[in-house]
């Protein structure tokens, strides 16, 4: 099920505790899933379904997830057991250079 998402949307997994914030998405509908099941609006999660074992690597709070071409980016706001996938491809953690605190 492909949906056109917009930056700022808060989404939740329907198989685990995971929640994400949309930072950047392409201007086309995408099939966004966590743990193999379509995501829902964080405010509208219903009953949980089963996690796809092939997509159970988990997500960690504070990590940013992106596709290989970096056309989209999601911030994990709550950790969960499912892996984020878009159109069937699992997303990876965006590598960030560690910066010293300047504040």
């Amino acid at each position, binding site marked *: 099920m492909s949906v056109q998402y917009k*930056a700022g949307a808060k989404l939740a997994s329907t198989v685990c505790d995971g929640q994400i914030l949309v930072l950047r998405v392409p201007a086309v509908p995408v099939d966004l899933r966590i743990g193999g099941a379509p995501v829902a609006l964080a405010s509208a999660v219903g009953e949980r379904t089963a996690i796809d074992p092939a997509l159970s690597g988990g997500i960690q*709070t*504070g990590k940013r997830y992106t596709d290989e071409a970096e056309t989209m980016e999601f911030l994990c*706001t709550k950790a969960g057991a499912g892996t984020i996938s878009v159109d069937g491809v699992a997303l990876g953690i965006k590598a*960030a250079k560690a*910066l*010293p*605190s*300047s*504040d």
Partner: protein
Amino acid sequence: MNLFTLLEMAADAMGDRIAISHGEHDMTYAELLIAARRAAAQVHAAGATRLAYLAVNGPAAPVALFGAALAGVPYVPINYRLTDAEIAALLARIPGALLVNDVETPGWASANDGDPGVTLVSVMAFIGETLLHAGDAPDNDRSIAVELFTSGTTGAPKAAILRHDNLMAYILGSVDFMGADEDDAAIVTVPPYHVAGISAVLSSVYAGRRMVQLPAFDPGDWLMLAARHRISNAFLVPTMLQRLVEHLGKTPPDLPALRALAYGGGRMPPAIVERAMELLPRVDFTNAYGLTETSSTIALLDPADHRAARAASDPALRARLGSVGRALPMVDIAIRDEAGAVLPPGEAGLVFVRGDQVAGEYHGLGSLLDSEGWFPTRDRGWMDDAGYLFLDGRADDVIVRGGENISPGEIEAVLSDHPDVRDVAVVAMPDEQWGEAVAAVVVLAPGSTVTEAALQALVRDRLRSSRVPALVRFVEALPYNETGKLLRRVVRDQLA
């Protein structure tokens, strides 16, 4: 995106960690979240269009910042050091605000004609409110998170606008979530109305680093607090670091937990940085360069850069101790000439910056970004081959002597090299023959007998003759504002 998300994440993942220590009181992330929900409820109850804060730094400032975000209104911290008339004038520009303040009968209330149209709430009542806003933060990435009045050193204060997406881009790009150890703590001495005061709150909350608030800087108090709270991190403006270094020279430091000192917000003489590194050899130093309009830091000279520069014998590498470092990964910096053409490394011009964290807009003036997103900082500077940025003062401070543009920075750098010169400001003074002439105002070390002629000779030796100050005046101290910004206009006025 909404800044409130940062606090929700912190409260969810580390609710029991202490977020803020102030005096004898601690507040955890879970408590900070509840307090912010109460603040948002008060904004709604008052029907306020802004949440303003006019008090010294305290727990109520972070509460107001996040409470405003949840309520979907701008947070407007105001400089409590301004005169009553100045405060009244600023309040008149934010009608409909709910104002948190710590004075029962504020002098500004009767300073100007007419009621500024704000609703007052005391710090105590603000923090103690029990009504809770239980809803979600609005999804309002393009709406305004913070409005900061600039210090107005060149005219009436401008209201700089920082949107949620600007500040989020800065935090997500520069801070690791829960990157701090549980016992890490940072002293916050920058005032709440300064952009560094805003970024200190956001960075600390996202990193999970306890903030220890010190409303007024004093080197002795700072050291006592640092020892007592086992402070690991701190940010200081240049004048604070200078005063700390002078204090440490007399009393050896007892700072076993201190790992990192960042400084920025103004010109920092390399000699003081070297002295600080000498006194605190195990501490990592970071120089941060940023502006209100860029959501804080855009370039960093990191700890490895500091050590490499200090150990280098090559003058070009050693000079990097006086640079503000390289652009953050999510920011581009370019040097352009007056006509807008990009200049190669080594050539001085105007500093431009681009990136998602760059806001570059003001109320009434709109956005100053060009069609490609570049913001003119009005700072002058140049970059070396490796991208290290060297600042050379404000474009507005350039001295025009007989049609020749002279940057005060290069003359100040030469004069600062003299062992007896403790501080120096080079400014324009009116001149019948040249239009403007170069004047140097110098603070000498106690007991020094250096003469005007000796300092003129030093500049003549190192720079072109047009750079030699026509006048050198010796003073006890230069005028700075409380966040370490040299008040050049005051220096110029004193010469006139």
